[in-house]
């Protein structure tokens, strides 16, 4: 059975290879090849899942050793896969959502002449992501880790002729590299600490290592998480990443890749459990990010950016949970999965809206669309309810558990974290409601005015093929796009309930992640009640602002906070001033130094000898008598020296 594991990765990898090397002759069928192979991978995943279910809880870990990768003395890296409940969960999420989005993209990318390559990249991403979650050692995981980074780089920058896209792609890769640095240092630390970096030895011996080292490792892993999962302070790339085609945003920057950080922390649970300081840092990062993202989400008028903000904050929840240790791991993953459903659904909905609106992304130019695209409206609506945690829907269960866990951490930390989590819930309700209202309700602000206002340039130049400046004619998207949305909507409605009733998910994951019942100072129902209150407050405020009054087509100046939030709370400005400008100055001055100083010394020496030479040759003045003088002097010196030698 375990021999199937490699096939999980092989299928999409094959697809990527075929599509990218195949060339134009595959343009006609490329997208179908890609979709097919991702479904194949999904089916294999399901088969393996069934197999795992068949086994006893403790035997649910399959490993497949392919070959020895980098054997150097003590440094032994193998290509070995490990399929346990945790990675199984991810495999299903990735391949499942992935396949749906492949399907969706067939319709979405219809008009793009580079569609084949797009699917090639998508397959590449699937392969890398599966490698990431299936790897049995950190180095192999690192390969997948950077692999997904590459795929995301290629896909964000898919419309390379747009400078903004190219820049965004570069930014994403660079910021991720900073995170990757953390991961590689973590691996080195593991090697020096345990003499290995395979999950088995490291996690089983985590207890024996000194806490200092473990903390270091934990913090480095956290750094990696910040990069990949867009956590503060490395979150800045996610917003720009929305330059990529919407399916990409849905798959990579909502459902799967950005959650890799959570996987990393949960996977390394053993290390964190033994390093409380590192855990605290994790929770702090999570808490900060969940507020940060939420606030940013409130201010954005670009529907995708708003959703991106929300993604950030939802991942904040997961990281927070993961930071809580055994009491949180399971719920982090659970929220991750449900979030995968509804956030993907939301993005696909947004894509569908843009598809109908000539790729307009500015929500202020939407309005009242529910009549024109009912399916999108319904699915998006369900996703919306799920994310704000409407009772009974999946978001409700998963988020609620996290908030409980946060309180359950106990002590002041517990109160603070819990409070933050609650606040976050309120804000979430607010901004999601805002999106909902601005898009589907209110009067139709897109009437009798061309889209594409200069101040809000569209992300999707696929529209170049249609008339840009015509007034949009909103219409429902084709089946191939709506079906995935419907499926995801169903998932986001039922998922949470299915997982939580009878703690199915808990029992499934516990053997891997471990679980300890936290005793929270406040009762479970109190928390739920509080959440509900926050929910209502958030929705209420949003309704008051965007439901009752008409939405101005041009954004009002807004409060200081709003303006800051529009600019991602000035994070980019900071980066620009400190890193970009500073870096430019540094490099420029270094180039100068290299040329004038380092090279100057070299050329200077040469010039020096030249000068000396031209000075010395003047002695050779052509007069025989002066030559005679020098001889005479020489003779005198010679004699003198000889006598001197004898004297001393």
């Amino acid at each position, binding site marked *: 059975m375990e021999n199937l594991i490699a096939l999980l990765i092989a299928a999409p990898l094959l697809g990527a290879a075929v599509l990218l090397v195949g060339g134009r002759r595959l343009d006609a069928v490329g997208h179908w090849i890609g979709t097919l192979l991702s479904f194949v991978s999904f089916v294999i995943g399901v088969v393996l899942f069934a197999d795992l279910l068949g086994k006893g809880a403790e035997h649910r870990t399959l490993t497949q050793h392919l070959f020895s990768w980098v054997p150097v003395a003590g440094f032994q890296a193998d290509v070995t896969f490990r399929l346990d409940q945790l990675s199984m969960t991810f495999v299903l999420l990735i391949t499942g959502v992935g396949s749906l989005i492949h399907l969706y993209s067939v319709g979405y990318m219809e008009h793009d002449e580079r569609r084949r390559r797009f699917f090639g990249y998508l397959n590449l991403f699937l392969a890398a992501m599966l490698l990431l979650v299936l790897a049995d050692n950190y180095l192999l995981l690192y390969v997948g880790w950077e692999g997904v980074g590459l795929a995301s780089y290629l896909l964000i920058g898919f419309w390379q002729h747009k400078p903004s896209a190219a820049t965004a792609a570069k930014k994403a890769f660079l910021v991720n590299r900073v995170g990757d640095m953390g991961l590689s240092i973590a691996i080195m630390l593991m090697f020096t600490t345990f003499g290995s970096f395979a999950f088995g030895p490291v996690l089983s011996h985590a207890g024996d290592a000194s806490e200092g080292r473990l903390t270091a490792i934990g913090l480095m892993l956290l750094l990696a998480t910040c990069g990949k999962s867009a956590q503060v302070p490395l979150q800045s790339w996610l917003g720009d990443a929305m330059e990529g085609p919407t399916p990409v945003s849905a798959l990579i920057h909502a459902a799967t890749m950005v959650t890799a950080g959570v996987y990393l922390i949960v996977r390394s649970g053993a290390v964190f459990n033994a390093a409380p300081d590192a855990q605290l840092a994790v929770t702090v990062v999570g808490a900060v990010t969940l507020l940060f993202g939420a606030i940013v989400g409130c201010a954005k008028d670009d529907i995708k950016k708003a959703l991106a903000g929300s993604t950030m904050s939802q991942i904040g929840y997961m990281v927070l949970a993961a930071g809580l240790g055994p009491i949180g791991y399971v719920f982090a993953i659970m929220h991750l999965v449900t979030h995968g459903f509804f956030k993907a659904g939301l993005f696909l909905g947004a894509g569908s809206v843009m598809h109908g609106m000539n790729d307009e992304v500015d929500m202020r130019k939407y309005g009242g669309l529910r009549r024109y695209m009912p399916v999108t409206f319904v699915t998006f609506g369900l996703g919306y309810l799920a994310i704000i945690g409407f009772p009974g829907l999946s978001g409700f269960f998963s988020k609620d558990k996290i908030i409980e866990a946060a309180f359950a951490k106990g002590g002041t930390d517990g109160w603070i974290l819990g409070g933050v989590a609650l606040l976050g819930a309120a804000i979430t309700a607010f901004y999601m409601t805002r999106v909902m209202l601005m898009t589907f309700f209110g009067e139709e602000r897109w009437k009798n005015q061309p889209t594409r206002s200069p101040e809000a340039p569209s992300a999707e130049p696929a529209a170049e093929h249609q008339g840009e400046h015509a007034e949009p004619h909103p219409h429902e998207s084709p089946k191939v796009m709506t079906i995935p949305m419907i499926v995801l909507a169903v998932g986001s409605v039922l998922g949470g309930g299915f997982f939580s009733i009878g703690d199915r998910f808990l029992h499934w994951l516990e053997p891997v992640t471990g679980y300890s019942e936290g005793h929270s100072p406040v009762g479970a129902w109190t928390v739920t009640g509080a959440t509900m209150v926050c929910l209502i407050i958030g929705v209420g405020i949003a309704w008051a602002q965007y439901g009752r009054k008409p939405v101005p087509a041009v954004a009002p100046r807004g409060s200081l906070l709003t303006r800051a939030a529009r600019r991602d709370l000035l994070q980019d400005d900071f980066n620009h001033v400190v890193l970009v400008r500073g870096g430019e100055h540094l490099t420029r001055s270094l180039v100068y130094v290299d040329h004038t100083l380092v090279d100057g010394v070299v050329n200077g020496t040469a010039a020096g000898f030249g000068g000396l030479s031209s000075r010395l*040759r*003047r002695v*050779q*003045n*052509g*007069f*025989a*008598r002066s030559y*005679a*003088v020098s001889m*005479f002097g020489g003779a005198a010196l010679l004699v003198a020296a000889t006598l001197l030698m004898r004297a001393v």
Partner: protein
Amino acid sequence: MNPVNYLYLAALLFTIGATGVLIRRNAIVVFMCIELMLNACNLAFVAFSRMHGNLDGQIIAFFTMVVAAAEVVVGLAIIVSLFRTRHSASVDDASLMKL
């Protein structure tokens, strides 16, 4: 008379000759100074020969004279041809090649 004095004289003559080479312009004079130096050497040889009581020095003096004569032959030839070309026997005029 102490033969050492002859040595001093020889040294003096030699120095005079050398100085002449350094300060005189006319090639002929310069050349004569060189001859003077050679003669100073001869004097030294003879003096030493006397002091050592063997004749080698005196014989060497004869050899020196022969060599000097040969040198004169060659030297005058060269200097004369130079003079005929440039109509001046000044050593300093001959300074085409320098640096």
